[in-house]
C-alpha cells in the first residue's frame, strides 16, 4: 500500500496541483498572523487557524483524490485490491493535509507569535489542527469525483458543506464538526474543560464522513 501512497503523492506534487491548497494556506496564515499575536493569544489564534484551514484541507484532499484519471484508479484497484486502493488514497490525503497543518503550526512560531506558546497551548493547537485535518479530509473525500462527478457540484458542496458545518456547530457541539465551538472555547480559555467533547464530536463526524465515502466507493468503484 505504501508504494501506491507514494505514487499518489508523487503524481499530485508533479502535477503542480499542490500549489492550490498551498496558496490558500499561505493566504489564511498571512491574514491571521499579519499583525502579530501578542503573548497569551497563541491558542485562540491556533483555534482560528484550525477552523478556517479545514476548508483548505478539504480542498487539498479533494484535489489529491481527483488528481489521477479514473482509468488509473481502475488499474490500481486490480493491482492492489479495492480496499487497499481506497485506504491508500485516504492515507495520501491525510499525509498531505497533515503536512499542510504542520506548516500552519510552525509558521506563527517564526513570524506570528510575540512569545513562544507553552507546551499545553502547543499541544491543544496541534490537536485542533489534527481534528481539522480529519474533518477536512473527510469533507474532501465526500466531494471527490467518485461521489460527485460534476466539478461544479463538487465545488459547491465542498464550500456549502463547510458553511453548513460552521452554522450547525453554533447550535451544539454534536450538531456537526464543532468548529465554532472550539474557536469559542479557545477564545474564552475553556478549551481544556471542553476538549473531550469537542474531540469526540469531531472524530465521530470525521469517521462517519470517511465511512460514507467508503460506502459510496464500494458501490461505484
Amino acid at each position, binding site marked *: 500500500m505504501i*508504494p*501506491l501512497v*507514494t*505514487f499518489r503523492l*508523487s*503524481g499530485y506534487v*508533479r*502535477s503542480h496541483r499542490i500549489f492550490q491548497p498551498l496558496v490558500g494556506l499561505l493566504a489564511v496564515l498571512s491574514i491571521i498572523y499579519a499583525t502579530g499575536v501578542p503573548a497569551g493569544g497563541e491558542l485562540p489564534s491556533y483555534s482560528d487557524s484550525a477552523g478556517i484551514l479545514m476548508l483548505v484541507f478539504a480542498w487539498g484532499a479533494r484535489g489529491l483524490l481527483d488528481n*489521477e*484519471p*479514473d*482509468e*488509473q484508479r*481502475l*488499474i*490500481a*484497484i*486490480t*493491482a*492492489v485490491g*479495492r480496499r487497499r486502493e481506497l485506504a491508500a488514497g485516504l492515507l495520501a490525503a491525510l499525509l498531505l493535509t497533515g503536512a499542510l497543518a504542520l506548516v500552519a503550526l510552525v509558521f506563527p512560531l517564526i513570524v506570528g507569535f510575540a512569545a513562544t506558546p507553552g507546551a499545553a497551548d502547543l499541544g491543544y493547537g496541534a490537536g485542533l489542527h489534527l481534528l481539522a485535518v480529519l474533518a477536512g479530509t473527510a469533507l474532501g473525500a465526500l466531494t471527490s469525483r467518485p461521489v460527485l462527478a460534476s466539478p461544479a457540484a463538487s465545488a459547491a458542496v465542498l464550500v456549502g458543506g463547510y458553511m453548513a458545518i460552521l452554522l450547525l456547530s453554533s447550535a451544539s457541539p454534536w450538531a456537526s464538526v464543532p468548529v465554532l465551538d472550539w474557536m469559542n472555547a479557545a477564545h474564552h480559555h475553556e478549551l481544556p474543560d471542553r476538549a473531550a467533547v469537542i474531540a469526540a464530536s469531531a472524530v465521530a463526524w470525521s469517521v462517519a464522513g470517511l465511512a460514507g465515502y467508503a460506502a459510496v466507493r464500494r*458501490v461505484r*468503484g
Partner: protein
Amino acid sequence: MRATNVSFRYRRGDPWVLSDASLDLAPGAVAEITGPNGTGKSTLLRLLAGLLRPVRGRIDERPAVIGYAPERFPADQPFTVAGYLRHMAAVRRVAVPEELTARLGMDHLLGQRLPDLSKGSAHKVGLAQALAGEPGLLILDEPFAGLDVTARAELAVIVAEVAARGGIVVASDHQGDLRTVPGVTRYEVRDGKTTRVARVVEDDPPTTLTIKLPKSKAEALAARLRAEGHEVS
C-alpha cells in the same frame, strides 16, 4: 474462474447491459470477446476483473494476481514512461518489466513523458503495466488497437505464453489478432448474453515454408512460431 448468470446494469431502472451471462474459464484459457460496439464487452471485462460487481449472479475463483489494460490508457499523468512503470512495479511488488518493454518495442519511449506519447505508444505502456508480474488473470480491452505490426505479433506471442503457464486471458478484440493464439475460445456478447462461438474450421491445409534468415535470429523466430502454434523443425 467461473461467471454464472451474471446480470449487470449501471443504475436501477437502466436497461440491463448483461443478462444471465455465463463464462467458464479454466487455467490457461484464452477467451476472445467479440460483439458490436456498445453491447457490453468492456462491462463484461470490468466485471471479470472485479472492477464492477454483478447486480445478479456471481463470479467465483478469480485468480489473485490480475493485470488490467484498459481500452484507453490514461496518459494524462505527470510521469515519464520509465517512472510510471517503476511506480506500478512497486505497487504490484514485482520487478520493472524491462524484458516486456523491449519485446513491445518501447525502449526508446522510456524517457518520454506520458502526455507526449502517441495513442499507440501510450497503449503499449498500458499493456506493459498489465503484463508485469505474471498475472493469473489478464484482462485486455482492445489490446491490439493502435499497435504497430511488430507489437501486434509480439503481443499475441506474449498472450500465448501467459496461457501456457496457466494464466487466464480475456480480451476484447475487433482486429482478430488474437485468433493466431492457439486454443483461443471466442465468445460473442449480444443482447446482454454471451454466446460461445464455434471455431470456424477453414479448408486450410498445412504447407511447408522455408525461411532464410541470419543464424543469430533463427532461435528467436522458431520460438515465436512455436508459441503461435506452428510446427517448426
